[in-house]
């Protein structure tokens, strides 16, 4: 459970203000909002990478500021947007680094840690990538490896910053299926996305941000209406359905009726 109270986030100027939301266990929460609305900044604050400008964050009822880096890492894992990595670690080495919070200060990962890392790769069906160099993998494969690293971390909360941004159509839904399953397993999952369809199909709860404020929040099915999405993205959006699944499209100017 992640709770924010009257939270303001930003570097020196607030980007997002007065945010009070609760991310509950067993739920997939989607964060929607146009570019620059502060999703990444919010996530960095939730991860303790950036101090809040005002308000507070708590994890399972404990103030985030009272937790050490190690204690926090055992509770909450982070899948950042694709990062540039310099050194050619193998995929399994990258996933093993997810075990850092369980490895003693002067130790190296144990056999148990290796097992967790291999299990995480297997869970995402990428065990065959284990000994390949991470820097040589495609963007989608790297994203899956980083997700595996988060799984290996032994946390119960997961924050994903646009996890599908660099994935192909098939990998997109594979990653989202995995993430949705984690929520079903009881994890607290928060992800940001630019695709409202993903939010409508998979999220239990959505948080909608615009212009540095909370625009709306609630059950995905209730609040994600054409009206709200039109306001959110300043364009014309239609919602339809395929085999009973909601699908959302932004209409090109020339095709609007």
């Amino acid at each position, binding site marked *: 459970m992640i709770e924010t109270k009257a939270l303001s986030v930003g570097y020196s100027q607030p980007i997002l203000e007065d945010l009070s939301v609760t991310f509950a266990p067993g739920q997939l929460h989607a964060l929607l909002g146009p570019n620059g609305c502060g999703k990444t900044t919010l996530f960095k604050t939730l991860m303790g*990478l950036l101090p809040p400008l005002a308000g507070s964050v708590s994890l399972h009822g404990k103030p985030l500021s009272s937790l*050490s880096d190690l204690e926090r890492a055992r509770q909450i894992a982070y899948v950042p947007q694709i990062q*540039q990595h310099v050194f*050619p670690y193998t995929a399994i080495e990258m996933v093993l680094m997810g075990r850092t919070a369980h490895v003693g200060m002067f130790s190296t990962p144990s056999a148990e840690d290796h097992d967790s890392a291999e299990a995480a790769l297997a869970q995402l069906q990428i065990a065959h990538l284990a000994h390949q160099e991470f820097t040589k993998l495609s963007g989608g494969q790297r994203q899956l490896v980083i997700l595996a690293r988060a799984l290996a971390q032994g946390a119960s909360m997961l924050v994903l910053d646009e996890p599908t941004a660099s994935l192909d159509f098939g990998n997109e839904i594979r990653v989202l299926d995995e993430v949705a399953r984690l929520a079903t397993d009881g994890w607290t999952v928060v992800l940001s996305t630019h695709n409202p369809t993903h939010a409508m199909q998979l999220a239990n709860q959505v948080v909608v941000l615009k212009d540095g404020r909370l625009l709306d929040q609630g059950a995905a099915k209730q609040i994600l209406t054409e009206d709200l999405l039109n306001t959110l993205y300043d364009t014309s959006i239609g919602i339809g359905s395929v085999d009973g699944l909601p699908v959302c499209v932004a209409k090109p100017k020339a095709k609007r009726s």
Partner: protein
Amino acid sequence: MDRTDTVTAVWALSLGALLIGLSLLAASIGQYPISWDDLAQYIAASIGMAEGPLDATASLVLTEVRLPRVAAAIVAGAVLASAGAVYQGMFRNPLVSPDILGVSTGAGLGAALGILLSLSIVMIQLFAFVGGLLTVAVVYLLASRIQRQDPTLILVLSGIVIGSLAGASLSLVKILADPYDQLPAITFWLLGSFAAIDRGDLTAALPACLVALVPMILFRWRMNVLSLGDEEAKSLGINPGQTRVILIAAATLMTSAAVAIAGVIGWVGLVTPHIARMMVGPNFSRLLPISMLLGACFMLLVDTVARTLTQTETPIGILTAFIGAPVFVWLLFTTRRGWQ
């Protein structure tokens, strides 16, 4: 034991064997050649397996000149390579090394000041350490203040700027030095040389190197995590600040100890970690020992060539540059992929 462990073991054994072979070779050849028989007898005698009437001159040459020099080359090579591996990981930048960051020159400036003041070898080391540490601190602060797109480039450029400032100050020290006594010592030593090594230098430098090695071994796993960058390291559960400072200080201490006994020797710290990484990958548990062995072999080979190539000693810094520069160009061509 997985595949990489096997590869690492094979490399470690091969390099270890190479190092022993090179050491024997280096002990035997030189101005006063020592026969294999004499060498074998010396070794047998020193481990108590034989007591023999070894030729007195040969014994003296080995004990007082040849072996301290072999040991110093091994230590300096190993130390500069591990410092390079640590700097590259800590700054997440495969283009940095003790010399490129200006640490070697900064330490050289400190050491030259020590020589100018006619201090003891221990004090010269201390001066070298302070000089090196100040340089790396200034370079890092400068680079982190300049917010640009390409932090790799900015760090290298800051190193060059501060390094050349330290170089200019060094020239000033040279002008002030006694032209008959101190100046030749400073000049020759700035080009890097093991010619003046004695056992005292070695015993003065070893403790600093061993002390600096301790955090590198202890934090061998955290080194990997820190090389991902501050934000990832923090979200994985490590507070990067302290550990990073300790490791950078350790690498600087090592560099300074090497500079204090052997002068400014470039390229080893830049090139050897690269080659080690190509052999066993970036995992620091494997990278550190392989870099050390590789650096030791390289330095010993180069030093042996430096003292046997011509009648007069060739300063070793000249040779490492002649070898290191082309090797680095080759590395630039082959490993560019990983450096976006």
